[in-house]
């Protein structure tokens, strides 16, 4: 019998509880997502409706994020919710009229926005909605390290993780310094954007903050969390490759000697 045969059976209690958690997750995601969208785009959207010569393209850009949010929740796709929904807000922001941009920069609006964005990411990533333990890979463990069980970790992973986290915070502080405190950059903003300086600074902050989030998630957190797994997989692949290569090398060696002896035999026959 295959030792990797799936042994888990369906547990109706667990299933029903996870379904309950999922619906709560969907409600929370919808609530926070709509709150984020409304903070950014509801007022400009209503303004577009108020005027008879409303821009159709702007209407489309304002409403596309809602459609993506709804689709992501209905299909329970993390990629739609965590990636496409925040990205779809950016073109809409580019279409915002200047007074709305300026309004975003007033008082504590930015703090509320960043808090809502953070809450949205937290709620969305609370659980992976489309996955159940044992549902993928035919019930087999994804990383079969039975032969490496008990091998101690060779590296201080906490040290790795926190040093990278410190470096990423340094990058964030550099970006914020560049936008808000660097005189030269401030002068460039004034020179190239004139009266819309504050708007341009807000736009730059949002774009760079989004880029920083992507940078931290994709370049620091994901590789950092998978270091040991990647190392073991690399070891396993190398071992596998070496085994295959060993056979091939044997074949090449024997064939080489066979050809060489044939050549010598033919040469000797012709010579004598």
């Amino acid at each position, binding site marked *: 019998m295959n030792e990797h045969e799936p042994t888990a059976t369906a547990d109706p209690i667990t299933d029903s509880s996870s379904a309950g958690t999922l619906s709560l997750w969907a409600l929370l995601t919808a609530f926070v997502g709509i709150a984020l969208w409304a903070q950014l785009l509801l007022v400009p959207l209503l303004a577009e409706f108020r005027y008879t010569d409303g821009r159709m393209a702007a209407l489309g850009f304002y409403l596309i994020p809602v459609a993506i949010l709804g689709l992501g929740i209905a299909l329970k796709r993390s990629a739609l919710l965590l990636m496409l929904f925040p990205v779809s807000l950016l073109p809409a922001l580019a279409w915002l009229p200047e007074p709305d941009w300026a309004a975003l920069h007033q008082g504590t609006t930015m703090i509320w926005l960043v808090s809502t964005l953070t809450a949205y990411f937290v709620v969305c990533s609370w659980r992976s909605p489309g996955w159940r333990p044992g549902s993928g890979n035919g019930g087999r463990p994804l990383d079969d390290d039975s032969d490496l069980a008990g091998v101690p970790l*060779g*590296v201080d992973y906490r040290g*790795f993780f926190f*040093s*990278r986290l410190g*470096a*990423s915070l*340094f*990058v964030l502080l*550099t*970006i914020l310094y*560049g*936008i808000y405190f660097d005189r*030269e*950059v401030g002068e*460039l*903003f004034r020179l*190239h*954007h004139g009266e819309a300086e504050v708007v*341009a600074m807000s*736009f*730059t902050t949002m*774009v*760079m903050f989004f*880029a*920083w989030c992507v*940078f931290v998630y994709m*370049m*620091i957190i994901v*590789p950092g969390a998978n*270091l040991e797994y*990647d*190392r073991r997989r*690399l070891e396993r692949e190398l071992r596998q490759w070496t085994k295959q290569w060993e056979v091939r090398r044997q074949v090449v060696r024997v064939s080489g000697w066979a050809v060489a002896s044939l050549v010598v035999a033919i040469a000797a026959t012709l010579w004598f």
Partner: protein
Amino acid sequence: MVGRIYDIVGLGFVLGSAFIFYQCVRFLAQADYVAAVIALAAAFTVVRVGVELTRLGIAVGREGQ
């Protein structure tokens, strides 16, 4: 020892990417959006190299044990 060196160089790459992110801010301030996108791609590439160096350092460090 070699693994530690790789690790430090990798961290240096991540820290060094801050300069490219700063340049990206400068380009955005000048409304040069194409240059900003290129700088952003360059920054991501530099960070990626740093992460790969660190992983190499970990593999080498493990090999030396």
